[in-house]
C-alpha cells in the first residue's frame, strides 16, 4: 500500500428520510480543521434514495466536494448495501481520513467497512487532531472505563477511520451560496441480493428525547448513597422542571435505566443548566456533559474532578443542600401565589 496515493478528508453524511443527522454537520466542522491543516479538500459523502437536494446543505456546512450514491435499494440504512456504496467510493477516490458519527448506523457501517478495507478504526472518539508531518490522524477517546484518554494512531493503513461521539464537535455556521463540487457515482444493486429487509421504522421519542432535549438536567452519582436518597433528585428536578439523569455507576447499581445514563457509553447532553450532584466527574462522564452552558457541581470531596468543569462548585453534602434548595423554591412559589411559571 502506497500511503501517498491517499489524499483528502471525508465525512460520512448520515441521513434518515432525507434529514441529515446533527453529528454529520458537527463532523464537517471538525473535518474542515483537519483538511485545512493537511491542505486537502474536505468531502462529505452520502448514500440513500432521492438525496440530491441535500448536497448544497453539505457544502454550506464546509464541504468542498460531495460524493453521492443514489439508489432505491439504499432507501433505508442496511449494512450490506451501504457498505458496498462506501467501498465503491473509497476504493475509487482513496481518502486518507474518513470520519463517521458514533450513532448506531455510523458505528455499524464503519466497523464493516474497516474490515473489508483492512484498515484501522477508532471507536467513539472525543478529540481529533492531525500530525501534519506524518499525515497521521490522532483520534483520542476515554479508555479503560473512562479515567484516562488514549490517542489511537493508524500508521501503515489507509484510510484512517474513526467514529466520533455526537455533540462533542462543533458545526460551522452554514454559508449559503458556498461553492463546491458534486460527484455522483452509479451503483448496481439488486433488492433480491439483499439478505436483510427493513420492515418498519418506529420513532419512539418518549424515551430518548427527554435527556437530549432537556434545558435543565439534574444528574446524580453514586455519592447519593442509596436508591432512597436518590429519590431526592427527582423531587428537586420536579420542583424546577428538570430531567433526571445518572452516571454509569448509578445505572449499573440499578437505580436508573440505561437510557438515562450520561457519559461516554450513555447520552451526550448539552443543556442550559446541568446539576452534577454527588458525582466525582470521571472522564467518561465528563465527555458526556462538559459542553453544557452552566454547570453546578455539588460534592463532599473538594478534590473531585467535577469541580474543574463546573461553572460553580459547592463543597458540601447533597443531602443537606438539596432539601434546602427545594424548600427555597417552594417558598418562592408560595410568595408568587403559586401561579408562577418561568417558561
Amino acid at each position, binding site marked *: 500500500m502506497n500511503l501517498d496515493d491517499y489524499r483528502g478528508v471525508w465525512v460520512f453524511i448520515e441521513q434518515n428520510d432525507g434529514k441529515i443527522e446533527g453529528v454529520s454537520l458537527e463532523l464537517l466542522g471538525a473535518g474542515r480543521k483537519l483538511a485545512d491543516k493537511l491542505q486537502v479538500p474536505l468531502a462529505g459523502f452520502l448514500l440513500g434514495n432521492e438525496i440530491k437536494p441535500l448536497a448544497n446543505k453539505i457544502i454550506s456546512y464546509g464541504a468542498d466536494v460531495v460524493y453521492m450514491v443514489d439508489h432505491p435499494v439504499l432507501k433505508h440504512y442496511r*449494512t*450490506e448495501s451501504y457498505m458496498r456504496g462506501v467501498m465503491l467510493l473509497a476504493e475509487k477516490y482513496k481518502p486518507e481520513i474518513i470520519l463517521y458519527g458514533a450513532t*448506531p*448506523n455510523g*458505528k455499524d457501517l464503519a*466497523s*464493516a467497512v*474497516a*474490515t473489508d478495507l483492512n*484498515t*484501522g*478504526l477508532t*471507536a467513539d472518539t472525543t478529540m481529533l487532531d492531525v500530525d501534519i508531518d506524518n499525515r497521521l490522524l*490522532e483520534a483520542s477517546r476515554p*479508555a*479503560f*472505563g473512562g479515567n*484516562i484518554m*488514549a*490517542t*489511537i*494512531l*493508524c500508521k501503515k493503513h489507509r484510510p484512517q477511520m474513526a467514529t466520533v461521539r455526537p455533540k462533542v464537535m462543533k458545526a460551522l455556521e452554514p454559508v449559503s451560496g458556498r461553492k463546491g463540487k458534486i460527484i455522483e457515482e452509479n451503483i448496481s444493486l439488486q433488492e433480491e441480493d439483499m*439478505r*436483510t429487509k*427493513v*420492515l*418498519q*421504522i*418506529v420513532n419512539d*421519542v418518549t424515551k*430518548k*428525547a427527554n435527556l437530549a432535549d432537556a*434545558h*435543565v438536567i439534574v444528574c446524580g452519582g453514586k455519592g447519593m448513597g442509596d436508591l432512597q436518597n436518590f429519590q431526592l433528585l427527582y423531587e428537586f428536578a*420536579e420542583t*424546577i*422542571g*428538570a430531567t433526571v439523569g445518572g452516571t454509569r455507576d448509578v445505572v449499573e447499581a440499578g437505580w436508573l435505566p*440505561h437510557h438515562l445514563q450520561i457519559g461516554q*457509553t450513555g447520552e451526550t447532553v448539552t443543556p*442550559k*443548566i446541568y446539576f452534577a450532584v454527588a458525582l466525582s466527574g470521571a472522564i467518561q462522564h465528563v465527555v458526556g456533559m462538559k459542553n453544557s452552558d*452552566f454547570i453546578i457541581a455539588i460534592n463532599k470531596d473538594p478534590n473531585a474532578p467535577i469541580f*474543574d*468543569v463546573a*461553572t*460553580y*462548585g*459547592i463543597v*458540601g453534602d447533597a443531602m443537606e*443542600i438539596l432539601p*434546602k*434548595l427545594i424548600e427555597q423554591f417552594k417558598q*418562592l412559589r408560595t410568595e408568587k401565589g*403559586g401561579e*408562577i*411559571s*418561568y*417558561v
Partner: protein
Amino acid sequence: MHIVVCVKQVPDTKIIKINPKTNTLDRRSAPAILNPYDAHAVQEAVKIREITGGTISVLSMGPPQATEIIRKSVEIGADRGYLISDRAFAGADTLATSYALSKALEKINNEHPVDMIICGKHAIDGDTGQVGPGIARRMDIPPITNVIEVSEVNQKENTVLIKRKLTNGYELIQSNLPCLLTVEKEINDIDYSPMPNMIKAARYEPIIWAVSDFENVDRSQMGLKGSPTIVGKMFTPPRPEGGKRLDGTTDEQVKQLMELLMEKKDLLTIQSAK
C-alpha cells in the same frame, strides 16, 4: 439450531485503578469477569434454544484463565465452550481480533454448521463494538447490531425477525439465517442459573485451540502484527481551571446558588402550588 455466542473476559472497570505515574492499568486491582453484555448474549441464546431446540456454543479468545468465563456461560446455559489461546493473538486490535475469532468460527462451522452468532454490543474494557460486525463481514453473513429483541425465529423459512435500536426509536428487520447479532443489555434479564447448570459448569473444561489448530491461517493478520491501530499515547486531559466555589455555611451557599439560579429563571419551570 446451532448458536455460537462470542464472549470476552474483561476487568471489572468499575473497580480498576490506573497507576497515575505510568498511565497504565493496574490489572491486579480489578477482578476479571464475563463482559456484562456477553452474559445477555448467552441468555438470549438460551431463550432462543427454549423455542427452537439445538445447541449453544460459546467462543472466547484470551489467556487460559478465560476458561472461567466459559464456565460462567455454561452456568447461564451454554452447552459447550471453545477457547482460543495463543501468544500469537496477543496485542490484537479489533481487526485482528475479528480475524482470529473468524478462523475459530470457520472450524466450528465445518464441524457443526452455525445458524446464528450472537455477541454483546461491546466489551466494557474496550467499548468499541467493532468486533461483532467485523466477524460478520469475515464470515460473509449479515450483521445486525444494537438488537433489543429477537421477535421470531422461523426455521422453516430460515429467517429471523429482529428489533434493532436506533438513535430515536427502533427498526424491525427481517434477516436471513445465518446472521450475526450484537445485543443490548435491555434485551433480557439474566435468569438465576438452575442447579444442574452450576454443577456442569463447575466441572466444565472447554476445548482449547492454538493457532496451530487452524488451517489456512495468515499469521501476519494476527495479534499485534495484524493490528493497524496502535495506542500512541495515554494522557489525563489537562484539568480546566474550574469555576468559582461558593463559600460559607450551607445556608449561605444555598442563598448564593438561589441568586445564581434566579438569573437563569427563564429556564426554570417553577411548578404551581397545588
